[in-house]
């Protein structure tokens, strides 16, 4: 199928994009990588009157680490995150999540901002942002505001962005020195949409105890979710297979009605959430140990 008609505006800067969004109101949508939006338009499930193409706004494509914060511009392609070796160390999980977004051609076009703003419950980057305590920067006609990842995702394809706001950047506080992270997902095929995924960040103290742990899950609710009960199980304990298993149980039990679809039932997703939490924690802790 072919997309319906729309009016097209190319924005050369974030401010120009925000201006265009304000001018055209609710019928306008931001076109970034287009890997979900154009698919939806081809199927004629959505029909925006206006598309504001932010691809010319080169200022929005960057990856910067300064003052303990990693900033990623919204237009940064997923493939750039995937291949950015400066992220290795405590942010390996972010690279892993990026490397499993769609396929090569999708990552070449798809953007970090688009992945978050599209807010697909099964997308890879949202759970990583939850686990990394990220905040999202939104620019509107009144200027910038920041929204914590925890408050950003409201439902399937629903976020805290106002209609005329543009997601410009995501900021992550760098995990403490010596932390490890991992992202693991299970999909029907080796690659492609995951059934569920887990991102974990684990920090160890000098004695090898878990000083901090944060876990984000995808595919098991209307949005990506934090697995706080599992975090509570592991913080203050020493890494062990039994501990991961206990965390898995806590994570699975705490889920509120995971969704069913053609690939898997909610029941299976609940089970998988536990398995993935255990595996992601183990991988993250293992990396943390190696780094200490």
């Amino acid at each position: 199928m072919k997309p319906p008609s729309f009016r097209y505006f190319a924005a050369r800067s974030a401010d120009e994009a925000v201006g265009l969004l304000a001018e055209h109101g609710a019928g306008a949508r931001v076109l970034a990588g287009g890997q979900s939006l154009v698919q939806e338009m081809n199927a004629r499930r959505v029909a925006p009157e206006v598309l504001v193409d932010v691809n010319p706004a080169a200022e929005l494509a960057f990856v910067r680490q300064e003052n303990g914060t990693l900033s990623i511009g919204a237009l940064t392609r997923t493939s750039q995150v995937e291949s950015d070796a400066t992220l290795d160390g405590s942010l390996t999980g972010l690279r892993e999540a990026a490397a499993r977004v769609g396929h090569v051609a999708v990552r070449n076009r798809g953007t970090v901002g688009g992945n978050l703003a599209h807010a697909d419950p099964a997308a890879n980057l949202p759970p990583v942002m939850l686990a990394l305590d990220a905040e999202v920067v939104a620019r509107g006609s009144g200027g910038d505001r920041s929204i914590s990842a925890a408050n950003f995702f409201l439902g399937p394809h629903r976020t805290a962005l106002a209609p005329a706001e543009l997601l410009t950047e995501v900021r992550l506080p760098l995990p403490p020195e010596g932390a490890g992270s991992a992202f693991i997902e299970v999909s029907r095929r080796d690659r492609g949409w995951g059934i569920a995924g887990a991102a974990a960040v684990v920090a160890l103290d000098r004695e090898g105890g878990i000083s901090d742990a944060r876990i984000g899950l995808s595919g098991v609710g209307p949005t990506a979710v934090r697995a706080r009960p599992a975090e509570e199980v592991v913080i203050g304990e020493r890494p062990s297979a039994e501990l991961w298993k206990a965390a898995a149980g806590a994570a699975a039990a705490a889920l509120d009605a995971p969704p069913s679809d053609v690939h898997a039932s909610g029941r299976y997703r609940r089970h998988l959430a536990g398995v993935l939490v255990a595996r992601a924690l183990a991988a993250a802790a293992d990396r943390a140990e190696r780094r200490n």
Partner: protein
Amino acid sequence: MHQEDIVIVTLKVNGVERPLAVEPRRLLCDALREDLGLTGTNLGCEQGVCGSCTVLVDGESVRSCLMFAVQAGGCEITTVEGLASGETLHPLQAAFWEKQALQCGFCTPGFLMAGVELLRRNPEPDEAGVRAALAGNTCRCTGYEHIVDAVLAAADGAARERTFAEEPEVDVAAEVVAREGR
């Protein structure tokens, strides 16, 4: 369709600048196929899943069914028609032929473009790397093995060429002079 809805865009396709008047909604794949007559790029799903319509935009693989032609203005686009030079096949095309990496051939242009990009990014991939890089392209005929073999063979061939190039070049004329004592 109103006149004001038409956008003029110049695509540089396989090295040639091609000005086009298109609606903003015109997908890059349709601009290439229908407006420019480059029908080597095939449409297998228009759902952004199968990879048959993969082309290179500024050297990177892109699903041309998920990009609007207006977005490609000023970009260098390479399609399957741009791989061979004259009658000489691109080494990856030659490897596909040699290894019989195709049956119906419908998905082949997309695989070639993905393979060209892979070999540019990683000239010496292993089998798992090739399979992962090609995971976004679906083939229903071959079971992939011959495709993977073709990409590995093309990588091998390129590696051999690099090795030869690194060997010190022999100045034939100087040798002749030396041998014949002139």
